[in-house]
């Protein structure tokens, strides 16, 4: 395997196939825990860990698992790692554990992980699978952080718990409530589609120029 494909595997999840903004997968934790930047990062890192470990194991076992029961096997593998993460977070910080609530255990049914196991890890050697999974996981962390930062700044006037605007700031409370999650993610998607549209227009303009000159 050469370095170019490894780099490609890694970058795929971060930009071109970003799980949050491009594929719109794993929405439940994305919207539920992103009320603050700290929560977003911890949720993202927990998912990243489960993703990399389970993709590595799935890839190692890919020749042993019969095709008919593969989904069940993947889910049991994922559930094992999630249980480990669940107990680890509980041991590290009880406050964080309470803030994330049941959503740590719900990582099991996050479609990103099962999707990666099925689409990539089941067909590739362990190294490639883990690199790809790490890229996806980091893309997921970036997506969560993008939401968490906006929602915390607007909804509480703080960033990582540090007050930004001083005492007279009126927090825009709706942003940390459920509707805010939908609105902020919708806003980000609008921004991305506007960007894609503009790039397309520029390209077609350039193409038009070339044909005119010829």
């Amino acid at each position, binding site marked *: 395997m050469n370095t170019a494909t490894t780099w490609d595997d890694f970058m795929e999840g971060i930009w071109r196939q970003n799980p949050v903004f491009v594929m719109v997968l794993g929405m439940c*934790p994305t919207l539920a825990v992103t009320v603050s930047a700290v929560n977003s990062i911890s949720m993202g890192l927990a998912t990243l860990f489960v993703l990399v470990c389970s993709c590595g194991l799935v890839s190692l076992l890919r020749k042993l698992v019969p095709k008919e029961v593969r989904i069940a096997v993947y889910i049991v593998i994922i559930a094992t790692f999630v249980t480990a993460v669940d*107990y680890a977070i509980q041991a590290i910080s009880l406050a964080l554990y309470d803030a994330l609530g049941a959503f740590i255990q719900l990582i099991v*049914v996050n479609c990103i992980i099962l999707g990666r196991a099925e689409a990539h890890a089941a067909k590739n050697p362990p190294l490639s699978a883990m690199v790809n999974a790490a890229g996806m996981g980091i893309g997921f962390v970036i997506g969560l952080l993008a939401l968490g930062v906006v929602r915390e700044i607007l909804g509480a006037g703080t960033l990582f718990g540090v007050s930004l605007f001083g005492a007279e700031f009126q927090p825009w409370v709706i942003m940390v409530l459920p*509707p805010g999650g*939908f609105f902020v993610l*919708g806003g980000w998607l*609008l921004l991305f589609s506007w960007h894609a549209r503009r790039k397309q227009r520029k390209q077609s303009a350039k193409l038009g120029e070339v044909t005119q000159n010829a």
Partner: protein
Amino acid sequence: MHETAFQIFINALLANNFVLAMFLGLCPFLGVSGKLDTAFPMGVATTFVMLVASLCAYGLNMLLGYLHLEFLRLISYIVIIASSVQLVEMVLKKYSPTLFRALGIYLPLITTNCAVLGVALFQTAREYDFVQSVTFSVGGGAGFTLALVLMASVRERLQLSNIPDLAQGTALSLMLAGILSLSFMGFAGLGG
């Protein structure tokens, strides 16, 4: 804190709606809500799986508690849910082939619906007894169906209206969900 069954039902149905207030089961909510014809059967099937999963999870939790194997809870729940989906699929195929064909691919996908696992996890975390668990799962399922049907109706109407090109697709659905969620906040405090 002891809630009556009715309070739990209303809470799960409206005030703490699974989709619009607790963000559970968003994938089918965004994926299947394009048409009213598929949205309703999907909601009913999910409700049924939730009920079965909740019953199994209740029994299983007692067994695990008795054997002191609580750390196996998550793994056994997910296996139970996967097998109850399989069971529902087999029963439907035998007794109502029409409905089975209508639901098609959505049926096996219920396994990865976080609302189903959510019911099992929340009823364990809140230590609900048998009656409370059953009402919680039925209320949650009804709330899921309600949200799905509302969303599908609005989206069917929107197909006829003039929407800016930029907002087409997922961005529009999310904005809609946000507005629906905003209106469901009006139910806050109803369940007491």
